[in-house]
């Protein structure tokens, strides 16, 4: 029998003392250790052995006082903590820690919606508040504000914002919509950013900067502190909306789509984030792969043509939403229709102008009117078996040539490894998130291994071409971080200096985004 897992460098007696101390702080039932306690925290979509990122224990805190005490214990015994809000970061590692043997610090019990301000359009929440929770709070209070849900609406508002997630309303850039944080540093000290640094100030959630340096972004995708409260701006509910969907018949249309879309996003004619989806991505939401192709390798072009024809979709599909008074919405619609009609064989469709109180049915449509949902998970059924996916997420300028280049680079490599191009671009004004999901059957070790190999290859390919990712799976954090190599990785050296200054014992999320504490690096 294997020895029970424990944090690297922490002897068993000390680890047991740490666990006993954790129990005295949060209660017996809020510390999970031994047996299969960490099982639910394993990555269900691991591209390989999920146990390579297994936690040694779980500690669930309910408030900042418990959190401070837990950090004190972790500092005393040198126990690394991997903080998760609700642990739903699927495709990027879920709730699993980067460093095997870390203790997962689960914040889901800190789940208060502290404030919803309808007048100024914001909410202040704790880490355990999911998009569903916030949506239900808005609904139950009859507040005329919309949130912006990410593709998976069960995630934490704070967790997704700190990971710089995105959605498809005009408030789709979640990090940009953040205003004001409360952060606990590794030494237990609480700070508030921006106007929150001033006692008695009421502007914490309306003015980001405050006075002097601004640090909010420093706590995103980092391991410099634990965010315990976060302000998020919410969209005033419009009078009505119009869902628009365009189909483009040809694979070669991508360049024209992006070139046509960019100016419309830059001047805000299209208010929402716009989503360009490949045929497979659309089809995976409504069908399974076997209906179109059941052979080896990537789905062939001929099968895609048949699939698009029978499903009534395009090789590329563009969706966005317009909001506001009917006259304004229709004026925007007319301009957009006119621009896109220049693309040969394009089919331009829109839903009727709809009162904002009327909910659409489909998941993608619901997301565009601020309703969280989970329809994106239909992709798990695409390939059959125990479907899983890991995502490759490069940033792409909204230029047709870059979009086509990235699409070709990914689809060629994916085909080499036997994967379909399940991808798309979510376009903001000046950048696009290009998301490709390598879908695999996790019960098939060869497929899982190939998915991992594909991701590694893509990160290297894209790095060589000058493209970086905005987010990545645990298994590739070091590799993705290493692509950011200006001046011999000067930015990472600065991150490591900040880490050393704020967290000298290296207890907070070691390895997050490739940032390792000095003591861990020295030990390894």
């Amino acid at each position, binding site marked *: 029998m294997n020895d029970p897992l424990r944090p690297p460098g922490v002897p068993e007696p000390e680890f047991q003392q740490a666990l006993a101390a954790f129990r005295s702080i949060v209660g017996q039932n809020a510390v999970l250790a031994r047996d299969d306690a960490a099982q*639910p925290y394993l990555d269900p979509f691991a591209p390989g052995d999920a146990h390579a990122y297994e936690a040694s224990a779980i500690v669930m805190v309910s408030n900042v006082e418990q959190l401070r005490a837990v950090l004190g214990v972790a500092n005393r015994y040198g126990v690394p903590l991997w903080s998760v809000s609700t642990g739903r970061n699927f495709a990027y590692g879920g709730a699993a820690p980067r460093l095997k043997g870390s203790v997962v610090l689960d914040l889901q019990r800190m789940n208060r919606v502290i404030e919803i301000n309808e007048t100024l359009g914001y909410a202040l929440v704790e880490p355990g508040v999911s998009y569903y929770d916030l949506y239900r709070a808005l609904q139950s209070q009859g507040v005329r504000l919309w949130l912006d849900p990410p593709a998976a609406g069960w995630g934490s508002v704070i967790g997704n914002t700190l990971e710089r997630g995105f959605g498809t309303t005009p408030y789709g850039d979640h990090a940009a919509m953040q205003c004001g944080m409360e952060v606990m540093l590794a030494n237990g000290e609480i700070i508030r950013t921006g106007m929150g640094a001033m006692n008695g100030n009421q502007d914490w959630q309306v003015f980001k900067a405050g006075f002097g340096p601004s640090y909010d972004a420093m706590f995103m995708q980092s391991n410099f502190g634990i965010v315990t409260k976060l302000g998020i701006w919410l969209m005033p509910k419009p009078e009505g909306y119009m869902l628009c969907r365009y189909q483009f018949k040809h694979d070669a249309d991508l360049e024209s789509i992006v070139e046509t879309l960019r100016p419309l996003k830059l001047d805000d004619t299209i208010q929402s984030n716009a989503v360009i989806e490949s045929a497979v991505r659309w089809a995976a939401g409504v069908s399974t792969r076997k209906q179109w192709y059941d052979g080896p390798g990537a789905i062939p072009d001929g099968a895609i043509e048949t699939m698009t024809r029978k499903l009534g979709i395009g090789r590329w599909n563009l969706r966005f939403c317009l909001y506001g008074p009917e006259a304004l919405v229709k004026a925007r619609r007319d301009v957009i229709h006119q621009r896109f009609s220049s693309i040969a064989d394009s089919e331009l469709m829109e839903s009727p102008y709809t009162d904002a109180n009327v909910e659409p049915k489909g998941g993608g449509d619901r997301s565009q009117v601020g309703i*969280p949902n989970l329809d994106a998970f239909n992709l*798990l059924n695409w390939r059959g*078996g125990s479907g899983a996916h890991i995502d490759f997420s490069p940033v792409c300028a909204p230029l047709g040539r870059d979009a086509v280049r990235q699409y070709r680079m990914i689809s060629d490599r994916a085909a080499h490894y036997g994967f379909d191009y399940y991808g798309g671009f979510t376009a903001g004004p000046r950048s696009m998130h290009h998301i490709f999901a390598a879908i695999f059957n996790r019960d098939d070790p060869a497929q899982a291994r190939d998915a991992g190999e594909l991701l590694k290859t893509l990160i290297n390919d894209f790095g060589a071409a000058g493209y970086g990712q905005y987010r990545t799976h645990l298994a590739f954090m070091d590799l993705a971080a290493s692509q950011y190599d200006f001046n011999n990785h000067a930015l990472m050296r600065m991150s490591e200096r900040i880490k050393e200054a704020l967290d000298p014992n290296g207890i907070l999320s070691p390895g997050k985004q490739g940032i390792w504490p000095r003591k861990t690096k020295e030990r390894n």
Partner: protein
Amino acid sequence: MKTSRRDFLATASLAAAYVPMSWPAQTMLRSPMLSSEQVAPGHALTIVFDEHLADSRAFALRSRTMGARIVPLGNDIGVLWFERLMPLASSPGNTIVGLTTHANAFLLTRFAQGIGLRVAQRAAGAHAGPDMLVMWQLVANGARSCS
């Protein structure tokens, strides 16, 4: 009499929910738990089904004839969880069983684990292919585990 795949799935799933038995050899065993964790005596059985899938509908209809409450997945599985299944699962005397796609089984499994429920599941079909449905059962014993 020839038994169709749909009849077979409905019968086998229902039997697994009610009666201690081993699954037929041609079903692919994903977890050893389900066969030994049937509905406890006195428990109310709720069947979650996918109204878009004939096999799942058939399972639900047969379950209803045996007194089970049936609940369609509906338009939003998150709403279903928060408004119907979580309150049921959190109160004693309820067993919740479903026959759904892998994706929906994954989602409900994760929701259930989030409130400390144990989940048993297995593939319900001869092949672990695209047509595979998953039978799952939520076990409210306060212990966390995962199949």
